[in-house]
């Protein structure tokens, strides 16, 4: 595929919000007024900065309790994300344990790793097929918000379960940090410009 087929190669910038093609020298999109760039500004740096932030938030999200359960007479039970999953396995709710494990552990950590890998691959002109990489990116972008499940579960349980002294469920601080992880990784995925993968591939092809 030759370079001349892309909008950037003929000096046109595509608006990220309304898809209009405009000359690249314009500051703002003439149709919707959004800022206009050939490629997302500082895409890799911004994505990396957000990924590091998400990693930092991920530590308290896993160390602190996401939920407290108070039973009549029994001491307050604090459960972390992983602790909650282990408890579910003990109680025999394997399918729910799997769902929470998938969306609270695999998806957020996998998403961080994929985005780190994509940034690294663009920076180092990695050889992995560009089409495969952009498919991985689209999956990552799509699946990100599903990690909010655990935060919603805590919110619902806290609202539903307060039966006087008999049984009370309270939310823990990890819910906030975990929501932060999800939101920051979603923004990171938005900041990553997948067109860079293809710019890379084109450049490499020309050089060979």
């Amino acid at each position, binding site marked *: *595929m030759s370079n001349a087929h*892309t909008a950037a190669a003929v000096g046109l910038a595509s608006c990220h919000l*309304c898809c209009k093609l*405009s000359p690249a020298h314009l500051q703002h999109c003439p149709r919707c007024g959004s800022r206009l760039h050939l490629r997302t500004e500082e895409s890799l740096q911004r994505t990396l900065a957000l990924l590091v932030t998400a990693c930092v938030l991920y530590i308290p999200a896993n160390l602190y309790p996401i939920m407290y359960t108070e039973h009549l007479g029994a001491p307050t039970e604090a459960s972390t994300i992983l602790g909650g999953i282990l408890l579910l396995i003990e109680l025999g709710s394997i399918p729910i344990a799997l769902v929470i494990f998938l969306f609270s552990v695999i998806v957020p950590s996998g998403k961080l790793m994929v985005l780190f890998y994509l940034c690294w691959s663009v920076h180092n002109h990695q050889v992995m097929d560009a089409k495969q990489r952009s498919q991985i990116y*689209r999956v990552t972008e799509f699946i990100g918000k599903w990690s909010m499940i655990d*935060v*919603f579960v805590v919110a619902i349980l806290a609202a539903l379960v307060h039966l006087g002294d*008999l049984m009370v469920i309270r939310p823990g601080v990890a*819910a906030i940090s975990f929501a932060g992880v999800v939101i920051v990784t979603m923004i990171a995925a938005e900041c990553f410009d997948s067109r860079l993968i293809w710019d890379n591939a084109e450049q490499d092809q020309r050089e060979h």
Partner: protein
Amino acid sequence: MSTSISTATSTRTRKASGSTTPEDSAARRVDETGADLACPGCDLLVNVAGLHDGESAACPRCGHTLTRYRADASSRTLAFTVAALILLVIANSFSFLSFSAGGLENQMTLGQTPGTLFEYGMPSAAFIVGAFIIFIPAGVLVMMVGLCIPLLQQRYYPWLRTLAKGIFLAQNWAMVEVFIIGVIVALVKIAAMATVYLGVSFWAYVAFAICFTLAVASLDRYQCWQQIEALESMQ
């Protein structure tokens, strides 16, 4: 479903103009390449003109779905949007879930999901949850009503652009379907400890989530902006 697309020269006619404003030169530049849009995923120039009703176009290089043309897109979107708004009002008016154990019972409404987080001293979490499950979806729906009615009436107002911008910026941040899965997981988690009843609001929210998803899917970004631009040029 997908038609193949090429970068062949477009034969579409554009608004003729003698002046040389940046907009006109942009239009000329686009005409020279013959492309209607650049793939947001890989920047390949593609020509998506001449899609038939119900057809969608995907990028030949990276596979990104570019646009889907539906002749009745605005009325479809409006129908799902109005249905979703009504269902959201119902979902906020009745009991969402109720829970009983040891002779005690507790009932909750949808609004209590963020409300309780606030009571427990977590306003930021309450704000996030409330925004994702109620306020952002409601805002997107209201803006879509405001957009679809003028589009159906073929009337142009300058604020149509602001509405469209708001819709396309906010729609990724609605998490209605995620919330439903969250409710189901929560129910299974406490099913062993107590009896849980699903309220009217729960079912209304499920129906709302379906209508909301269909409404958002009916409003195609590219086609919508093309329509706004066409209405403006007709003035």
